[in-house]
Each structure stands twice: as structure tokens, then as C-alpha cells.
């Protein structure tokens, strides 16, 4: 149980932006949580990933994921650099004014061990005809021992649209 759950920073897009980077992250917490409400400017859901880049490093990522579609489920795993952590950004052409709901939990981000990352996200698209991902759970790892001081989040392509909101929280588990 977290003793503290503090907002470090929130960014709300007032215009479209290609990516959002939280820099100079203090090492004073135990874990980090990122919560996002996002929509991107592209029409093709093949591009709707959240691409995560830690410390500007494009290496050492791996993941396993479970995806729920309209008509079934699927699972897979891979190593990609940088890492994509879920096709959970709303797209142009999907239900108007809907935003995905995403949470990333990064354990022991300031420690000297590889960093486990939990991801879950849901897309709202009010249609039964789409085969695209609606929800996803992703267990990932950044196999790097450096303390995380910056986190860059981007859609696979295009931009996050106005009113996309991303908040970085610090979790402190010990007094």
C-alpha cells in the first residue's frame, strides 16, 4: 500500500504535440505511475501505440501482452526498441471526443536493477464492427540499471490532440 501518491507533474495539451517528455524526474519516490487520457491525430489504428522511451535510450526493452478484441483475445511478446506499450490511443475516425484511458506503473525506477513495468489501457470506440484492440494488459521490462530520469511518451505516429492529458505520479512506499 502506497504511503504517498503525489502528483509530480501534469501536462494537458492545448494544441497537438508530437510527444511529451517528463524530464528531471526526482529520485525521491519508490515507484512511478503515469496516467493518461489520450487521443491521436492519425486514422489508422496500426499507429496507435504508446511508444515509451526511457532516458532517451532506444534499447533494452521487452514485453508480453494480452489484448482483448471485439471478437476474441490474443497474446504475444517481443523486444522492440524503443518499446511500444499498447495500442491504446484513440484515433481520428473513431467515436468523436473519446479519449483512451491508460496507466503505466514503473517499479523501483530509481534503483540499480532492471525496471518492471505494468501497463493497462482501454480504448473507447462505440462500434461493434471494429476488430481493433479495445483493451490491453502488458507486462514489460526495461533491462537497464540506470535510474530513470526522463520518460518520453509518443503515439506511433501523428500527434496527441488537444486535451490529451498525462500525469506523472510519485509513489512512496516507505516512510
Amino acid at each position, binding site marked *: 500500500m502506497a504511503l504517498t501518491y503525489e502528483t*509530480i507533474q501534469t501536462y494537458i495539451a492545448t494544441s497537438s504535440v*508530437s*510527444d*511529451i*517528455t517528463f524530464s*528531471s524526474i*526526482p529520485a525521491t519516490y519508490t515507484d512511478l505511475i503515469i496516467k493518461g487520457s489520450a487521443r491521436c491525430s492519425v486514422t489508422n489504428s496500426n499507429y496507435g501505440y504508446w511508444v515509451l522511451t526511457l532516458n532517451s535510450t532506444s534499447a533494452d526493452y521487452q514485453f508480453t501482452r494480452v489484448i482483448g478484441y471485439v471478437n476474441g483475445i*490474443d497474446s504475444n511478446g517481443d523486444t522492440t526498441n524503443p518499446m511500444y506499450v499498447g495500442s491504446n490511443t484513440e484515433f481520428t475516425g473513431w467515436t468523436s471526443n473519446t479519449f483512451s484511458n491508460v496507466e503505466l506503473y514503473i517499479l523501483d525506477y530509481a534503483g540499480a536493477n532492471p525496471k518492471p513495468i505494468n501497463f493497462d489501457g482501454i480504448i473507447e470506440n462505440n462500434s461493434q464492427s471494429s476488430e481493433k484492440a479495445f483493451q490491453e494488459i502488458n507486462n514489460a521490462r526495461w533491462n537497464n540499471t540506470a535510474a530513470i530520469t526522463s520518460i518520453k511518451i*509518443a503515439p506511433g*505516429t501523428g500527434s496527441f490532440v488537444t486535451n490529451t492529458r498525462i500525469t506523472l505520479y510519485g509513489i512512496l512506499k516507505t516512510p
Partner: protein
Amino acid sequence: MPTKVIVDCTTGISTEVELTAEEIADAEASAQKFAALRAKEEAEAQAKAEAKASALVKLQELGLTEDEAKALIG
């Protein structure tokens, strides 16, 4: 010109910066890579679904009920 945002967690200051030509090229390369990955995933999922449907038919031809066949292949 596309812009990126850098949120400094120490100062709380958010700065919008125009992407360089190199960053735009990187983003385009990344997009192509992820589109290819996604297409591969969808193709694999489709192949899996088709194999499952085929197995279901063949099991029923062997005399199993649909429920029995589904219980076998999950």
C-alpha cells in the same frame, strides 16, 4: 512544424520545441516499424483464428458435437 513538449519535473516548466528534421525522420521510421509490427500481429491472429475454425470443422466431422470440439481446442 510539429512540436514536442518537455515537462521539467524539477521546475514545473513545460516547453514546446519544434522537431528537428532528424527527429521528424526518426518518427517516420518509427511509424513504419510499428505499422509493420501491428500488421504482423494481425496476420498471426487471423491465421490462428482460421486454424481454429478449420480444426473445429474437422473434429465435428469425426463425430464430436460442437461443444465437445470447442472444449478440446479451447
